[in-house]
């Protein structure tokens, strides 16, 4: 069996006395989509920010293609991370740049295209997420929430990354727009053959975009399994979380 695309072992991170990650172990196989679920403040964002290099973990191993990015030379670590595309929760579009420059930003930064042809390339990628050329010259602030997510997705896929991260992709969207974004995510990930990690609270979204799912609880991965078994899992933590029950181990933990 080939090594996982991303392998995480014993990942720990604390902010002061607050332990957020307490030994996370997680494997994401090539070309599969992993969904990480868990309550607010359980460290889902810290987990993907650690892989992205935006947060330095206190201990642990993060391997991409078998190489530990935490021990690699900074230049090599940057090369490994350059294959990751990220869709941020609120889009995180650069409001000082028009839409097309947001989309082509990564390609221009990596000098993979010339500035003169960047707009045409951006329009082409925008079409892949269902946006027409008329939005290319708009400012991100002129777009609706759903359109901003699409532009964020276009920016993430523009460089055709081998790995894609999605931070709560449907948060703040109505159910129909959420389903549309999920469909686009699945389509983009499959078309590019990418490996992906999504973090979400939205169970419908988790089942639509994930092949596998992992439950983050008390700083560790407490359960992993197929995403389509999320709602039927006998695990008491997953059962309580996915069904939104007030009673259960999660509430007990919060009361401590």
């Amino acid at each position, binding site marked *: 069996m080939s090594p996982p695309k991303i392998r995480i072992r014993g990942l720990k991170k604390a902010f002061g006395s607050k332990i957020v990650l307490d030994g996370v172990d997680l494997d994401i196989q090539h070309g599969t989509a992993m969904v990480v679920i868990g309550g607010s403040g359980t460290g889902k964002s810290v987990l993907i920010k650690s892989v*992205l290099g935006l947060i330095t973990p206190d201990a642990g191993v993060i391997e991409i293609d078998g190489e530990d990015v935490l021990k690699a030379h900074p230049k090599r670590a*940057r090369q490994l991370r*350059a294959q990751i595309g990220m869709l941020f929760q609120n889009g995180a579009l*650069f409001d000082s740049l028009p839409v097309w420059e947001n989309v082509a930003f990564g390609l221009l930064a990596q000098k993979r295209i010339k500035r003169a042809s960047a707009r045409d390339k951006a329009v082409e990628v925008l079409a892949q997420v269902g946006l027409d050329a008329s939005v290319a010259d708009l400012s991100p602030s002129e777009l609706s929430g759903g359109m901003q997510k699409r532009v964020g997705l276009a920016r993430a896929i523009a460089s055709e990354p081998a790995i894609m991260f999605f931070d709560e992709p449907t948060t703040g969207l109505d159910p129909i727009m959420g389903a549309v974004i999920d469909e686009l995510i699945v389509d983009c990930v499959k078309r590019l053959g990418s490996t992906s990690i999504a973090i979400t609270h939205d169970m419908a979204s988790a089942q639509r975009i994930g092949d596998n799912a992992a439950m983050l609880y008390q700083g560790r991965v407490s359960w992993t399994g197929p995403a389509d078994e999320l709602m039927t899992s006998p695990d008491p933590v997953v059962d309580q979380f996915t069904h939104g029950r007030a009673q259960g181990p999660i509430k007990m933990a919060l009361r401590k």
Partner: protein
Amino acid sequence: MNKLLDLVALIGAVALGTVEFIGELGLFALSGLSHIFRPPYYPRLIGKAFMEIGYFSLPVVALTAVFTGMVLALQSYTGFSRFGAESAIASVVVLSVTRELGPVLAGLMVSGRAGAAMAAELGTMRVTDQIDALSTLSTEPMKYLVAPRLVAGTIALPLLVLLADILGVLGGYLVATQKLGFSSGAYLISTFTNLRAEDVVSGLIKAAVFGFVIALMGCFNGYRSKGGAQGVGTATTAAVVSASILILALDYILTQVLFVKVK
């Protein structure tokens, strides 16, 4: 005894916090400086920052300089006329403006305008994940956001001060000739007789340092802001206050250093 220990702990915490802040600022400045000299370079962003810091600050700096020169002439006349030393007004105006008031007042005005804007922009980018997004798009935020502003600030302020010098002297000239009855020729001769190149150059050196400090404090406070809108507001205030204090403190230090050199 407990109160004494609390006081010692408080003093210790303040001292540690201050040292930590200075260390962070120093590392931030060194990182920003190192990115200025390492590729890739962003000339378009330097140009954009230059316009924001320099060009759009022109009106406020120009008005400040003109009125400062005018007030200086009036005040000098009021004081010097008591001793029959009105003829010194031209040299007082030109030396005060070029050596001190031009760079310091321009620095304070640009700090309030451009420094605050920098902190607010970078602060907003921080709290909306835009700075993190830069990192994920193969772009080093210090190189993309901070280095161009440091370069632009260091170049723009001397140019603004050069203009402020001219307008400040012009303000003094207008009041002296139109209101105080000085002869135009005599005032100009007195101005240029007493003005040396070193006076202007020392002011421009100060301006370059102030420009760097304004950009540094704007970027530093914005870059590390957190906590949403309130955090951005706090960062903006901190940028203006810290840059203003540093300008005044550095003005004293630079005056002492340059005075020894210039005599």
